[in-house]
């Protein structure tokens, strides 16, 4: 790694001040699982790094009386994997956390890091999209909220300005009779990255689907929702045939590329397979 200056703020305010005083070549560091490999490869050569690991507020999870979840941006994937409140009502998010890397990586990798790094394959993005989550961002001008659906603007690009920090993700409670699931395909069972990832969330009322969400990773420049597929499910009972149809529509929403992790053809194939499987699981969980 090349040399840089390291700032160690103890609070969100100190972070914001440090960012305001820093030049453009400044990076924020939380778990380091994406940033450090990029520094070591020379892809990034910041003059200054600001370490968020000492800011206690960013590590907090609050399950607010069943009204929703507030997750600090530096909460680790491992915490999401194991946290009871997350597993109880936001299982797809726990599942995505559980899949990141290995246990040694999950104890460091953070929710905020995963979505701010904004790789097309970011595992935690599809569940957040499927759960209609919001990003809470703070900067010199104060706080603002951005729906996750508009948070990603391109490959490794988000709506964050250079002087802003993601402090929290707010996830509304999906309510009763709602179930979700996150699935991904990887060549190995651990230490791997999604070739395709699909999250779904189905909410039922009297056997009718009132809300359907299907979100895809690694098949477009940004994680995205398959809205036509969602609409094909809403307002009626969810049957195997309708799931199949939704899976086909999800394939249409995907715009995969071919790279050394997988061809476009295989990725499209996997979107169909994984969408069908995740919807089937979400349905079973919603019906339970």
């Amino acid at each position: 790694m090349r040399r840089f200056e390291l700032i160690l703020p103890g609070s969100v305010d100190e972070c914001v001040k440090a960012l305001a005083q820093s030049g453009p070549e400044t990076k924020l560091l939380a778990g380091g699982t994406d940033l450090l490999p990029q520094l070591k490869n020379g892809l990034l050569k910041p003059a200054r790094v600001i370490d968020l690991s000492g800011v206690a507020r960013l590590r907090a999870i609050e399950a607010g009386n069943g009204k929703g979840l507030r997750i600090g941006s530096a909460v680790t994937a491992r915490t999401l994997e194991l946290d009871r409140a997350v597993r109880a009502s936001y299982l797809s998010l726990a599942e995505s956390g559980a899949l990141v890397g290995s246990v040694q990586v999950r104890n460091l990798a953070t929710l905020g890091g995963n979505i701010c790094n904004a790789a097309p394959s970011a595992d935690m993005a599809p569940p957040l999209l499927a759960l209609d989550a919001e990003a809470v961002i703070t900067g010199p001008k104060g706080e603002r909220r951005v729906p996750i659906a508009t948070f990603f603007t391109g490959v490794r690009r988000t709506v964050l300005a250079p002087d802003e920090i993601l402090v929290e993700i707010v996830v509304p409670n999906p309510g009763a009779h709602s179930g979700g699931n996150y699935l991904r395909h990887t060549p190995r069972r651990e230490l791997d990255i999604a070739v395709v990832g699909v999250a779904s969330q189905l909410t039922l009322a009297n056997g009718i689907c009132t809300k359907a969400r299907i979100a895809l990773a690694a098949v477009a420049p940004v994680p995205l929702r398959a809205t036509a597929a969602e609409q094909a499910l809403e307002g009626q009972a969810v049957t195997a045939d309708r799931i199949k149809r939704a899976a086909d529509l999800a394939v249409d929403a995907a715009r995969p590329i071919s790279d050394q992790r997988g061809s476009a053809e295989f990725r499209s194939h996997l979107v169909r397979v994984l969408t069908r499987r995740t919807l089937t699981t979400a349905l079973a969980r919603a019906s339970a």
Partner: protein
Amino acid sequence: MSSVMKTTRDVKGIGISILRPDAPDKVTGQIQYVADLNPPGLLHAKLLRSPHAHARIIRIDVSRARALPGVRAVLTAADIPVLKKKAPTRAHAVLAIDRVVFAGQPVAAVAADELAIAEEALDLIEVQYEVLPVASDPLESMKPGAPPVAEVGTEADTSEALAHGSVAGVTAEAKPAKAVNISQQARLQRGDVAKALAESDVVIEKTYRVPMVHQGYLEPHAVLAQWDRAGNLTLWASTQGSFNTRSEVADVLELPENRIKVIPMECGGGFGGKIRALCEPITAVLARATGRPVRYVMTRREELEAGMPAPQVIIRLKTGVKRDGTLMAIEGEAILESGAFSGAVLAVSGVFLASLYLWPNFDVKGFEVLTHKPSIAAYRAPVAPQTIFAIDSQMEQIAKAIGADPVEFRLRHLQREGDKMANNQPWLSNGAAEVLTRLAEHPIWKKRAEWKASSKGGKLRGTGISLGGWLGGLQPTGATVRLNPDGTLQVMTGQVDIAGTNIALAQIAATAYGVDIDNVKITTGDTDVAPMTGLSAGSKTTYTVGVAVMQAAQDARNQTLGIAAKELEASVHDLEIENDKVVVRGVPDKGITLASIGKKGNLYMSKVEPVLGTAHPAFSVQAPAFCAQLARIEVDPDTGEVTLHNFVVAQDVGKAINPLQIEGQMQGGAVQSLGMALTEALIYDDKARLTNPSLLDYRKLTSADLPNIETIIVEKPAPHGPFGARGVGEPPIVPAPAAIANAIEDATGVRLTHLPLSSERIALAIASA
């Protein structure tokens, strides 16, 4: 204090699973690798590497790098006069002079106070390249008119082949005109292939492809270099052969060999990738330029981009048989992509293709092809896994086509001792038939129909078996055995203890001399003090160094008995060594302790010589060793994911000196083989640049991907091995790709011929079937 697990074996000290004495240091993190050495004044080295696979170097400007505070030296080829324009081997290409021939080739070197400063110094070096056309695909590179890789006039480097005891009697062929990148060529022929194919009932033609793979050792290449004021160089190296390293460094830097001391540190895995010198010459030059100790440790990215991987192998086979299963003819070619320098072990491939199973008519050609990629080195049984993938898959398909039992069909045509190899040498005694037969008796093989029928939940179940092996390596070597004044033994070799062979050698010495293993200490000496020793490679360590140790121990025993005979006034033939004493057989109270013999040889004014047993044998007879593997799998046809439920390895080890260590070799080799089968590949783009230079995307199998590897040790003694032992390291890496491909066909009906057998290949093949 080793805890000895006694078994009811025949010979003392052999066949006992004695624990490695270095295990306690390894589990406590005390054992030292090169990167753990941190002498005062240490400098850190970094290399600037070419981003282009083929380019002319127009200009290099290092002035800004040299001016960075903390930088102690920046070197280019211009600073190293001994470098030759036509580098005969990869090791000689220390820094590129005016042309780079693979992406990742070193162009400049930096030594600095800190690694971070060295990295920044690299950023300050300006290199102007003229990019040239790239030969990136071996099939294209073979053609006349392809962009040339070697400097015209460079000879094919056969030292790699020689290091692996390659096969006699394979004829070299003249190159086709203007195919400048074909660096080796060979052909094995017998009979009339065209006629035999015409008379065949079933003809199958397939092309098999195995990409370049990395040996995957966890410890990257590392070396620490330091000169003394008298001009002697010391290298602490992670190496599989300290004497080979010394010779290569001496040759490259034009130094006398006795001015170089190579101290082999604990080696964190080699598997053939640490046989040839790589980082040592440049590190030595940096140390000389700075007058300080310099340490160079490759990053993982450098290892993947610029290591010395296994060759890509493309094998086309056309086979003809009669409907009754009579073999008629095999015809085809094996193309080995060697990267920018020659070095593939060509002959082994031809022998396995044409005569592992006895084809009466064959015409098999082999080509080594150069491309603008990092040059290759050995990887555990070099070329055998790729070759067996081809011939075993082919045999399986033939058996299926004619309705024959796959095991019986192989056994029917399998070579036995005395049969003619394709190079007309006789097959030596080997246990190929025994291991295959043994494995076929396993319940997993016997119950394969039930397993397949039990497929459920949309998944498909199957079973596959395969057979492979290694011809065995040879190299002259030496050993000494000394008797200490207290009666204990001291064994010295130059053998780098890669595979736990030191404990096996200690067992051999203890048994041959006649004492308990606890009395024996074995030491790996550096190149200044140890007898000349060969590589820890080629599955020849136990086979060759074991014999040297055995003979040296026998020599020491004879000397001991000679001294005792004089003291006891008895004939040597009446003497025994028991309980650390030399006694007259049948007269237990008439004896002399080993300690007193040892003391006599060390006393001031004594006329008794100290006991020093020596041996320095050379060998001419290899010991082939075979391994069969069995896979029970389940396939998810929609995603192509393969679940390994069971995996069994049966191997002929000749004589199991240390069963515990042998099991470890079998399990480790099998998992490397499975990695080659399922997930591993170095993936280059059309400009011959590596697209997956990290362990995220160069996928080695994790514990979560695997079941327990079951091992079955078979013993068919080798006539010339110590106590009948054969080499153990290489055979287990050979069979798995074929076993998995056979299992996938059993489960899904799909035959795949291109490794790795990735989920993508499987899913798309099923979808289009």
